[in-house]
């Protein structure tokens, strides 16, 4: 079972990464009024596969002055850290690779291993650009973990759970089918005094950003912080081509570079999956039940059958792809921040707002 979960998660991750790599080229081209890849396959869809094939054929170069052991371990460590995060992501009401009770906390902790890998890569390369890139990257990731962690804490306070699957169930029509939530009910905007029970309406009305509107602020904070955590533009100063060549992976080539590339895109997918699960209703349908139109029930399926797994996977992945599109959109439309602007945004803007959101989330919980 464990092996099956491993293989399935790996396949899913690789599939999503390939889609994102292709989408990045096409979206970039669209934003800049170009065509993007057109030659390989229909509309250039084979381009990402060919990129990977090309990278695998290249010579594996290790610089003479590099620290060979650290240089070799770093990409593996970074990829392992990101991939380990996928273990706790629920894919449908019944399908989750490792349904541990403290999944959210585990994910936050395991992602921090990534930082060690970056330091290893930067140091092992024995190159000043790589070192500077790694230092910048680590400083940025460690700083932005704070607003991201506080935004997640607000969700955890509202949901009263560290279990991704429990948080998922709370955001849809299936809530009462989760062990321990049989007697819970959702209210419109999370305010019981309004007297509008949305437990069986479902759809967007029970997503966290809707059932506790303050979560929308938390979602924005988390999304900005997550861009910084995966070193994406406008927070890509660790890789800034114009000043650092390529940052911490400047010395890497061939297969090792492919692993870095994969880990970076997998990280993007992971942070978007987490954003969807925590704020945007996880694998729950977007359509509410409206009177006799049981849209939510029709697009949820029944637990225990294939319909629930397929619908759940469909909603989770399509919402994730929308968020990934926003990431690409931001990359190709915003200029890069300076280091001081980056730190200003984190410590003087996002962190105080996130602290306020945590307080408000606690008060909101009292109304639910």
């Amino acid at each position, binding site marked *: 079972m464990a092996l099956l979960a491993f293989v399935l998660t790996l396949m899913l991750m690789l599939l999503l990464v390939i889609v994102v790599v292709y989408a990045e080229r096409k979206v970039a081209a669209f934003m800049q009024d170009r065509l993007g890849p057109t030659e390989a396959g229909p509309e250039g869809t084979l381009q990402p596969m060919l990129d990977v094939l090309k990278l695998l054929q290249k010579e594996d170069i290790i610089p003479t002055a590099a620290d060979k052991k650290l240089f070799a371990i770093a990409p593996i460590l970074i990829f392992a850290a990101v991939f380990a995060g996928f273990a706790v992501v629920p894919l449908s009401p019944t399908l989750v690779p490792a349904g*541990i009770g403290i999944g959210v*906390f585990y994910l936050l*902790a395991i992602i921090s291993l990534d930082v060690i890998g970056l330091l290893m890569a930067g140091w092992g390369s024995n190159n000043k650009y790589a070192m500077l890139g790694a230092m910048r990257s680590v400083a940025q990731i460690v700083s932005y973990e704070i607003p991201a962690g506080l935004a997640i804490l607000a969700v955890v306070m509202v949901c009263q759970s560290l*279990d991704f699957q429990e948080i998922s169930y709370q955001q849809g029509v299936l809530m009462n089918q989760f062990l321990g939530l049989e007697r819970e009910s959702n209210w419109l905007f999370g305010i019981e005094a309004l007297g509008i029970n949305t437990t069986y309406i479902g759809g967007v009305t029970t997503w966290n950003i809707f059932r506790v509107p303050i979560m929308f602020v938390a979602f924005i904070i988390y999304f900005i912080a997550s861009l910084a955590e995966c070193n994406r533009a406008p927070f890509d100063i660790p890789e800034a081509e114009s000043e650092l060549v390529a940052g911490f992976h400047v010395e890497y080539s061939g297969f090792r570079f492919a692993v870095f590339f994969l880990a970076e895109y997998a990280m993007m997918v992971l942070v978007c999956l987490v954003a969807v699960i925590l704020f945007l209703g996880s694998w729950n349908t977007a359509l509410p039940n409206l009177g006799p139109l049981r849209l939510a029930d029709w697009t949820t399926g029944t637990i225990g059958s294939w319909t629930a797994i397929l619908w759940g996977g469909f909603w989770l992945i399509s919402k994730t792809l929308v968020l990934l599109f926003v990431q690409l959109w931001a990359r190709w439309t915003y200029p890069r921040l300076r280091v001081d602007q980056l730190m200003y945004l984190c410590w003087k803007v996002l962190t105080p707002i996130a602290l306020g959101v945590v307080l408000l989330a606690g008060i909101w919980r009292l109304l639910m």
Partner: protein
Amino acid sequence: MLFYIFALLAILSAAYLVLTRNLLYAGFSLLVTLLSVAGIYVLLFADFVAVVQLMVYVGGVLVLILFGIMLSSRVHDKSVLSESVNKGWGISIALLLLVGLVYSIGQTSFNTLPWLQGNADDVLGLQKSTVQSIGIKLMTDFVLPFEVASLLLLIALMGAAYIATDKPKV
């Protein structure tokens, strides 16, 4: 079986940590030690402690140590190597620790071993993790130490901010 793998990893990496002279390698082998100890915590049904260990030590303390080593290396044009100093004190403290550990291991009641090797359900019951019980304990029986610890952290934070501020030139 898993326990022995983690234990072996922890011991080997800890030994390497002590014996190597390259401070940076010592830092990275501390990573392996911390990860293996976290694995052992999980096997003892202390999942929350395991993750806290990762969060605080790997994500915080270890990164700080590595940063310190990397930024301070080659200060006087030579890379950072650890030297052996204070041999007498070191040996005596290590011996005292060994005596203490042997004593406490001797106190173990091995009758409880089957309990530890049982299923998670036998130990944890219906709850899926130890978070709930830890939270309740922290807010009831151990609320004073908990608050004192938070006060200590606040003082450390203020101290760090004070040290980092530019002092006006008199």
